[in-house]
């Protein structure tokens, strides 16, 4: 960034609501609905200020009827709206999954391309604040397993705005996951690294492109969402010890940017995958598989995965902290792989 650019740091929550507001100005067909998105401004502030600005015809509080109001986005988008729908916590997907994965995701394919659903389904993910097993999950790996949904997970305010804008303009259904611990809410711990400069004018960050957020030569740490700032902190800690860590922010799971992963691993010869979703049959497995398929001969050590160890998220702070990957654990895992 040139030194003359005025820095305008925004929280991720503000970045998201700004993107939505700008797209709503631009296109009258963009509407927002979900639980508590109106007067409350969204439980996590993603729709803060929108009701005041756009009124209740475009910012709509819904009953607790996720199947109906997510399913409504299907019919509405087929008839010309571009709905942004909030599923308050991703953990609640189970009451509405059929509309999401059997319809929103598949109609374009099942119709041979004649039906389009430009819908953004945004939802909160992540733990770390003792909200226990039904309010702390990440689960993006599950959505990424199912064809027809773009799956995106920004790790900072700049990407959050640019990817939201891209998602709203995309003619496909996009699942937009924001991590509660990156949003910059006053009442929730938030990683400072997520609060970065955000240009005021609308811009897009292309979906489907990972980013090498820090270069390094000894090991590739592949992460997403809240694990990205943690990986960066681990990198910093290891620098004095002479370990040079490359950090990749996947940003998008579907479509997955395999090339960036493979290029990095071919360069560093070591890979650690860090994920806040459950360990097995998820993101960390897929990335490991990509490496096993395409960079196997470059590897000097086995692939390692650090993720939630296939247990529900426990409530008690000490237990939760034990199962969610921490900076300490990332440091330790890198040390094991690079020593």
């Amino acid at each position, binding site marked *: 960034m040139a030194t003359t650019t005025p820095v305008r740091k925004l929280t991720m929550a503000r970045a998201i609501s700004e993107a939505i507001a700008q797209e709503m100005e631009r296109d009258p067909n963009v509407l927002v609905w979900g639980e508590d998105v109106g007067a409350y401004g969204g439980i996590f502030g993603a729709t803060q200020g929108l009701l005041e600005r756009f009124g209740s015809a475009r910012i709509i509080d819904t009953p607790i009827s996720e*199947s109906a109001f997510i399913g409504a986005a299907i019919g*509405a988008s*087929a008839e010309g709206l571009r709905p942004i729908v909030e599923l308050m916590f991703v953990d609640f997907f189970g009451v509405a999954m059929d509309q999401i994965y059997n319809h929103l995701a598949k109609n374009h394919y099942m119709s041979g391309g004649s039906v389009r659903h430009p819908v953004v389904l945004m939802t909160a993910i992540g733990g770390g604040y003792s909200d226990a097993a039904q309010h702390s999950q990440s689960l993006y790996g599950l959505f990424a397993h199912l064809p027809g949904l773009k799956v995106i997970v920004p790790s900072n305010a700049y990407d959050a705005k640019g990817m939201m804008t891209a998602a709203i303009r995309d003619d496909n259904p996009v699942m937009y996951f924001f991590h509660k611990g990156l949003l910059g809410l006053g009442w929730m711990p938030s990683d400072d690294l997520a609060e970065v400069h955000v240009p005021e004018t609308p811009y897009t960050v292309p979906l489907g492109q990972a980013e090498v957020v820090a270069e390094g030569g000894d090991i590739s740490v592949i992460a997403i969402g809240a694990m990205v700032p943690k990986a960066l902190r681990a990198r910093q800690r290891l620098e004095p010890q002479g370990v040079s860590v490359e950090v990749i922010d996947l940003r998008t799971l579907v479509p997955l940017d395999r090339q960036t992963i493979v290029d990095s691993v071919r360069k560093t010869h070591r890979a650690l995958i860090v994920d806040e979703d459950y360990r097995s049959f998820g993101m960390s497995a897929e990335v490991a598989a990509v490496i096993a398929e395409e960079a196997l001969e470059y590897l000097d050590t086995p692939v390692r995965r650090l993720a939630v160890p296939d247990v529900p998220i426990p409530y008690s702070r000490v237990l939760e902290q034990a199962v969610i990957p921490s900076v300490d654990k990332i440091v330790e895992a890198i040390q094991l792989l690079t020593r």
Partner: protein
Amino acid sequence: MDNLVTMYRTMCLIRRYEDQLAEIYTEGKTPLFSIAAGTIPGEMHLAAGQEPVAVGVISHLKQDDVVTAPHRPHHFAIAKGVDLRLMTAEIFGRRTGLSRGKGGHMHLFDPQTHFSCSGIVGAGFPPAVGAALAFSRQGRDNVAVAFAGEGAANQGTFHESLNLAALWKVPVVFVIEDNHYAISVPKEQSTAVAHNSDRAQAYGIPGVYVAGNDVLAISEAAEEAINRARQGQGPTLLEIETTRLYGHFQGDAEAYLHAGEKESWRQLDPIARFRSYLLEHHTLSEDEDQTIQREVEERVEDAVKFARESLEPDVGEAYRDVFVES
């Protein structure tokens, strides 16, 4: 009453279509009903006997009104005006089909006539509410109609969608097609009340039960409901009694039916009854009827011929349309 004859013609077309598909469905299947084999593979849910529901309601819709239909969709699609050739080619899995062969009989999509359906029971309610929301926000005077079986009325989406629609007062009509059975489960074993239409009270909207599988009674009730919706007075719930003249799907032995049950339905064939009515009232002559029969036969034959002569999709087609290619 030109309109009545049109309705009759559409009913005949549907019946001819379903009978024709029933016949073709057995083609190339050994053993009989071998689901994967033959000209038409996969499940096949036919709607013969249920024509009055589709025709009675949809005759009041415009082309850009929305219909969402369930797994038993042909009568609705035909009544809505979905192109018979493209639809048949889709059911045959051909590259000329509505979805180039990727959808099949339970997944007919036609943006032209704003028609869609789904193989998941109860799944059509929420999208209809959403379409109606779009109409109301865009200031269009369109209406959305969600059709589903009486079995679907016990799915959570029914409740959530009716409440949402009533709350938002959007132009949607919910039609429950009560053919007495959900596969083998009779309505009394699935539904705690005698009439789903009574459930309208749970949403403060009108609920109407139409007995007798009579297209005129259905048309009358539907007209009122659709007008209400179009005039901004909100949703209505219709429950319409009808009968399923084939099994749940082709190959269903229907061992669960009571003795004589099917026969009693056959005797009340709604098309035969409507025909008698029209003849009696001189709205239709025997000659005209013959012309209609010939005409619908030709249309079905033409559609089937088109489908048969169409090529199968090319394998590459399987990999397209997961996402919009921009």
